[in-house]
């Protein structure tokens, strides 16, 4: 299961973490790549990797489109990137940024336990899975409702599960779930998929997958009271004619998009109406000493390779700012 809470408020920072040239907030491919480059530029670099080092990458069972790797586990790739950043000289702390503000000596970044002052900040905190916001979703989280197929698919061996969404992540996870589930029903509100053509082809030729087009999920139902209780059915609605049906189901996997993890940075840099960091020229934000890389910024492609490229560019931009 993955942590869905962003920017949880805890006790105020009590310890001084000290001063650092470049502070990188985040623990995914953008942050690790920036760490590799910044370390090699000999910038004094600290990566606050947060509570989920590896980010979404670590939760992805297989990456097939990172150059040089035709099929690699996300966790393995994330672990390798981290080691590379550490060998390049970047320090890593598994601490989460709670707030960031402009101070006299630089950007002041607070975590649950420490406070740091950085001459430059790279926001690479990624994004968290978006929730449906429907009845039953919270009540059955961990009891049939999941946002991570890689984590939870083995609990649905020979069971019937529902996948919500039509993008790359939804389709990859639906295909992965067929390795365990007896049937995977994919519910999509449109009548076509956004996912890559190669994934669409695999989906439509898989006989364990049933597509429910132009359909939305209204409610997740189940047995809340007994210890072993969980999801038992869902209420669906047709977008076309508004008709409602109940479908027996054992699990619901939700992949309807991502919300940028920008809560600690509100007030520090400009955000888009969707909550992503506004950037110009790739990785520059509304402040000259703050950069943004990867899924957290306003970008049209959210991939491991684009996050890595952003990380390299951001480290270079920080190097030019601090040393030239």
């Amino acid at each position, binding site marked *: 299961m993955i*942590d869905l809470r962003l920017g949880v408020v805890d006790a105020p920072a009590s310890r001084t973490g000290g001063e650092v040239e470049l502070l990188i907030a985040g623990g995914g491919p953008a942050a690790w790549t920036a760490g590799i480059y910044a370390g090699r530029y000999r910038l004094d670099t600290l990566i606050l990797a947060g*509570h989920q080092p590896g980010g979404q990458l670590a939760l992805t069972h297989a990456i097939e489109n990172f150059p040089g790797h035709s099929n690699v586990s996300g966790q393995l790739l994330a672990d390798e990137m981290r080691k590379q950043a550490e060998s390049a000289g970047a320090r890593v702390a598994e601490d989460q940024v709670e707030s960031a503000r402009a101070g006299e000596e630089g950007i002041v970044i607070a975590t*649950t336990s420490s406070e740091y002052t950085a001459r430059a900040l790279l926001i690479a905190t990624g994004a968290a899975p978006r929730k449906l916001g429907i009845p039953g979703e919270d009540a059955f989280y*961990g009891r049939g409702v*999941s946002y991570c197929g890689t984590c*939870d698919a083995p609990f*649905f061996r020979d069971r019937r599960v529902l996948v919500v969404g039509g993008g790359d992540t939804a389709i990859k996870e639906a295909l992965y779930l067929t390795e365990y589930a007896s049937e995977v029903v994919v519910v999509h509100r449109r009548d076509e998929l956004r996912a890559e053509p190669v994934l669409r082809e695999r989906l439509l030729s898989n006989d364990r997958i049933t597509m429910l087009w132009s359909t939305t999920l209204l409610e997740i139902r189940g047995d809340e009271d007994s210890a*072993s209780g969980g999801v038992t059915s869902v209420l669906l609605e047709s977008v076309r004619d508004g008709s409602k049906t109940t479908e027996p189901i054992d*699990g619901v996997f939700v992949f309807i998009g991502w919300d940028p993890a920008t809560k600690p940075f509100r007030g520090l840099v400009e955000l888009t109406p969707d909550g992503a960091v506004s950037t110009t020229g790739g990785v520059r934000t509304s402040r000259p000493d703050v950069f943004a890389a990867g899924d957290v910024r306003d970008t049209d492609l959210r991939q491991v390779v684009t996050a890595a490229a952003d990380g390299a560019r951001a480290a270079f931009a920080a190097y030019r700012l601090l040393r030239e």
Partner: protein
Amino acid sequence: MATTRIKGSDIDALAARSDRITLVDFTATWCGPCRMIHPVLESLSARLKGRVDFYEVDVDQSPKEANQLGIRGVPTLILYHGGREIDRVVGFRDAGSLEAHLTGLADTHLTG
């Protein structure tokens, strides 16, 4: 203190204690968030020594009990007191919020 690895069949006897809270972490080797929560539990087991006992069960080694308890995601932490399940925490939690949560449960359920 540390987290003790047990079998699913050991849970009932340990959960029966009423002089402390029994925490069972249902975990799996293939689960990233499980790997991340392990050091959190190790550090809390020292801080909450004498009030909360920490155990872990590998769901692949004890599938029967995991199924009976309705585990459909890992990590799931089940907290017991006096033979009764008093709370369930699903997914990764950081040390600060988990410690506050466990301390609250201990204050409610343990006397003295």
